[in-house]
């Protein structure tokens, strides 16, 4: 293909890519403008200086550190809990090949696609009865189970192809099922489990409906819920909105840079399997 035809295609793709990241740039630029500068020059001008008070005010006003801590605590616990649950389920299905495993697997897949709207009210009601309403623990429990549905599905198919000889050999050497699981299956499946941990963490971080319903007090809210609620109240001025957006975007960008490889590969694996 000629050089003349090559570059327009690349240019079109680059423009498309720029359009995708432009909103991030606009937010970053406006988050460091003072309100006076914003109202004088509008959202499209470049900042004249670095004005960080907007970010600082916003951070203090919503106690953003606490929200970050809640998000990390909830997403981290869910990632670990759901990975453990997925491993146990997948061990029984993929390696134990228990009877009716196709049905069990189908059940997990369906549980995974179930809309949260069909669970939210009873979960809300039951957690109130159990005294768990408005606790981070309630959200951790619910998402551990919901995320484990996907994990079970993915890991079961991976473990279904696990070399049987290794398991058999360990059994002959006298290892019991627990030892086979923790000393052989888990170490060998570490890459897949790693992908699951990353996914569970980010998915839980981004969850909105259930945390919105379950976490009403300021001290328990996640980043997503706190920002969503603020936005819903329509109380933020432009500077505050941009501060909120930037502080919300930053953790996502950090995860993205940290886990880009895992994410893009894992998604492909998850989707096709």
């Amino acid at each position, binding site marked *: 293909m000629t050089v003349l035809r090559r570059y327009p295609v690349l240019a079109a793709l*680059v423009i498309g890519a720029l359009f995708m990241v432009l909103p991030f740039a606009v*937010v970053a630029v406006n988050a460091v403008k003072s309100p006076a500068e914003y109202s004088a020059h509008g959202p499209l001008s470049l900042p004249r200086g670095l004005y960080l008070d907007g970010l600082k005010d916003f951070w203090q006003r919503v106690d953003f550190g606490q929200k970050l801590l809640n998000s990390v605590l909830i997403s981290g616990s869910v990632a670990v809990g759901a990975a453990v649950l997925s491993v146990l389920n997948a061990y029984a299905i993929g390696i134990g*090949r228990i009877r009716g495993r196709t049905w069990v697997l189908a059940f997990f897949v369906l549980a995974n696609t179930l809309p949260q709207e069909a669970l939210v009210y009873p979960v809300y009601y039951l957690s109130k009865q159990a005294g768990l309403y408005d606790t981070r623990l309630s959200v951790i429990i619910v998402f551990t189970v919901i995320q484990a549905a996907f994990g079970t599905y993915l890991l079961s198919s991976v473990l279904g192809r696990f070399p049987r000889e290794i398991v058999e050999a360990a059994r002959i050497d006298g290892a019991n099922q627990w030892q086979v699981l923790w000393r052989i299956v888990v170490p060998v499946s570490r890459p897949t489990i790693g992908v699951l941990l990353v996914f569970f963490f980010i998915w839980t971080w981004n969850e909105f409906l259930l945390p919105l319903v379950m976490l009403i007090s300021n001290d328990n809210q996640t980043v997503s819920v706190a920002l969503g609620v603020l936005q819903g109240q329509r109380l933020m001025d432009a500077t505050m909105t941009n501060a909120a957006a930037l502080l919300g975007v930053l953790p996502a960008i950090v995860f993205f840079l940290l886990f880009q490889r895992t994410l893009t590969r894992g998604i492909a694996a998850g989707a096709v399997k």
Partner: protein
Amino acid sequence: MTVTVERGGRVARGHHGAATRPRRPRTSYALFLLPGFIAFLVVVVVPFLMNTGVSFTDWQGVGSPTWSGLANYRELMDDSEFWASFRHSLFMVVAMAVVPTALGLVLAAALFDFVAQHFGTRTAAVLRACFYLPQVLPIAVAGIVWSWILAPDNGSLNELLKAVGLGSWQQDWLGDPDLALYSVMGVMVWVQIGFPLVVFMAGLQRVDPQLYEAAELDGAGWWRRFWHITLPQIRPEISVVLLWCTIAALKVFGAVYVLTKGGPGGATDVPSYFSFTTFFEKTQVGYGAAISTVLTVIILALALIGLRFQTRAEDAEEGVRV
């Protein structure tokens, strides 16, 4: 239980043709399923059954529900708000499944066999990362970003239009009932496009490069190769992505909550948001449960079809596999 599983174990071993060796008695693998089973019972199965049950009752969330049979569902049939919300769902399917899949295919093919070949895989990877970035963003944050960009006064989009001399095109993007749904759709395309792109690019790696070389020798242009090789080769990925994205589109909640709250005047209401407001703002729990049950039935039906399709495709591909 041990007995049945023992039998199951032998059946499974039978598939591997090694059923002759005598085995030590063993504990049941089913025990490993126990924690998961109990957890799913408590968090998914029981709430789901409760929700379905409540949909046949009249309940405000306090006191005890009174049985009302199919009354909620009959009411739904005549509720224009309900029908509107599902109509908007179809728009969301276009914005979150159809358009991203189509765009994602073209982008993936262009990045994979054009940019990567002529400009290096690094360039392709960087471009892919740009398209994928919105996927890791919490939807609440994406909503804040876009509702500010699309704001009528001082919003970046309107300012941009003014700056390039298209001031007359300025709109109240999210506040105009005729426009709001399309604005939300635009945002959802932006959010969603990275997912199909990444899956398709991974799928393309499976395709035998010789197919392309042969086609190129035969004088097939880029579009012909795209149509006759790329598309058929990654059909499994396409169907999975379409199905997943359709289900995601039917569930969309956060974007609507943050961008428009279903407004203006219900112009962007979707089933999940409709059930949410019915549950928690109107506290008509029975009616909300009916809405979410209808949504669930549709989604489960889609998932079952997809599951059948996928199993059949796998069987066809690898022979009947256990």
